[in-house]
């Protein structure tokens, strides 16, 4: 263990600077949202993630945000365990009917001000599951959505850029 720790001190960090998005890739951020998060909450965001019936692909990439390459906490972004501690609800999946009530209750449990981010194509409009008897087909059918991050699943760098944009204003 000592050797690994020592190596960790001597090797250069793996963490990568966040490169700016290509102009046409910048996620759309509503005008009323731009700057509002920073104004109200300062430099830190607590994020509660809820899987509303995703295939688990989005969760894999959200979990990757905590690895040494992306290290989302350096931006003041924290994934928190309870909606009571959260500023942002980050939702994945097409919102299955079996999960809708639990998701709504999670949203209701968050203190205001709060923002909602839909991550992945399924959360946007149901993705390839749209039209099924078992899904609502997109998060905005249940709660108002402030920011959408497309992708199947979104790449960690896209997730990170969007969340940083939410924090710093468009």
């Amino acid at each position, binding site marked *: 263990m000592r050797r690994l720790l020592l190596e960790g001190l001597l090797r250069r960090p793996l963490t990568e600077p966040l490169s700016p998005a290509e102009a046409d890739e910048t996620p759309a951020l509503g005008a009323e949202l731009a700057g509002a998060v920073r104004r109200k909450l300062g430099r830190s965001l607590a994020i509660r993630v809820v899987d509303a019936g995703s*295939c688990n692909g989005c969760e894999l990439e959200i979990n990757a945000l905590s690895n040494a390459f992306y290290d989302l906490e350096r931006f003041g972004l924290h994934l928190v365990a309870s909606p009571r501690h959260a500023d942002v609800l980050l939702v994945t999946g097409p919102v299955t009917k079996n999960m809708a009530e639990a998701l709504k209750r999670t949203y209701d449990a968050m203190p205001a001000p709060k923002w909602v981010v839909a991550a992945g194509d399924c959360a946007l409009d149901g993705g390839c599951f749209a039209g099924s008897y078992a899904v609502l087909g997109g998060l905005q059918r249940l709660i108002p959505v402030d920011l959408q991050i497309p992708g199947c699943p979104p790449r960690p760098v896209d997730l990170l850029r969007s969340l940083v944009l939410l924090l710093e204003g468009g």
Partner: protein
Amino acid sequence: MNDILDKIDTDTAAFRTHALPDHIVTPGEWETAALALGKGAAELTALWASRRGVHMLLRAGGNLGLLTLETEDSFPSVGRHHAPAQRMERAIRDLHGLIPEGAPDTRPWLDHGRWGVSHPLGRPGPATEARYPFLPAEGESLHQVAVGPVHAGIIEPGHFRFTAQGETLVRLEARLGYAHKGIGALMRGASLTRGAAIAGRTSGDSTVAYAWAYAQAVEAALGARVPERALWLRALMAELERLANHLGDIGATCNDAGFAMMLAHCGVLRERVLRAADAAFGHRLMRDCVLPGGVSRDLDAAGHAAIAELVREIRARFPALVALYDTSPSLLDRTVGTGWLDPALAARFAAGGFVGRASRRAFDTRRDLAYAPYDRLRFEVPCREDGDVNARILIRIAEVGQTLDLIDQLLVNLPGGEASAPMPEGTPGHMGLGLVEGFRGDVLAWVEIGPGGTLAASHLRDPSWFQWPLVEAAIEGNIIADFPLCNKSFNCSYSGHDL
């Protein structure tokens, strides 16, 4: 009973290359098969329903047998004689409205009473009621803890009802179905291409395994031949997927024992695998890369080099992490002896993957129901008997080594030629079966071809169907705080199970 066992007569070579034949059986023969399963004379590989009735896939050695009981209303319960069938029967009842007669558990499973409809794949009716009684646990000073479907961590949705005496768990009952997306209905009548997209989104961490199993099923049903190069590239993707999941989960399991350093280091290696996959195949998880007929993207020299470099990097870094695991008594104290799975239960439930192989069930689809190109590759199937969290971690560590060797062989011997071929016209009514060893175990896909290049019906069976009940058994007598550790050491799929 021997008559039934005689029906397990489709050998591996036959179902791998041809449409799948089935045996139409009487209710009496169906029940005899259920009794044979209960006695351990054969393994239950899958149980599902279609418009024709119910289907039971049995395995004995390298042979499979598909039994079909044609029915419009009910069938003799298999779960009555063979417990692993119970949740599958409950799902059949929820989705198709076919009643398992004499079933010991008549509660719904996937249907939570919220779809606005009942029996969506059978004769649709009004929505069922949402009430769900949990199994009782009675005794002095017992208390219940309800967890989920929203969890503290970033994981899939499911509800766990713990009954504990002090810290010790007396009973765990899982309630699943929260991720049910109606995949069976979406597949019905879908084009073969759309079917591939949905199959690849059944369980995101096994997208290659699902897409490959689905492609195998379609190709077998159509009698299609796939170019050699495509088969080898599929295996390369499947091994990269296995590698990424094993590395990520070894770290995450140790993290659930409070040992964050393993997660940090394994997380770096996992990220390297995903980046190599992205460089080689254009997607970090290799989604939509396997299609019926071949693969969607050929491997170029740069991709080849990225994977070769990845193998070198992991070989250089991983041994120190294995040594770290082996020499950290505080970590081993949590994993050794925790979450013990009885080998007898693993055998009875035909538990696939590392869960089975850590509890004496030495089964691997790549070897025991072999498919190309694994029939031409050298690899070992590690197996242990101790069956605890430690055993499951050690099996996965051993499999990382096997997978690196397989990737070496695949890269060196990769045949040339095309990476995909056009598909022939299918014959409506033909059925095909695909079975692929994903990181979690055997992923099964069954399809029935419809008219004009569509799917008449399909069934995707995740290995988790046979593993989830075993989590409940393995956790008994452990402390409640060890549940995340035990659960992660199984890492069953919610989405793959809920469909």
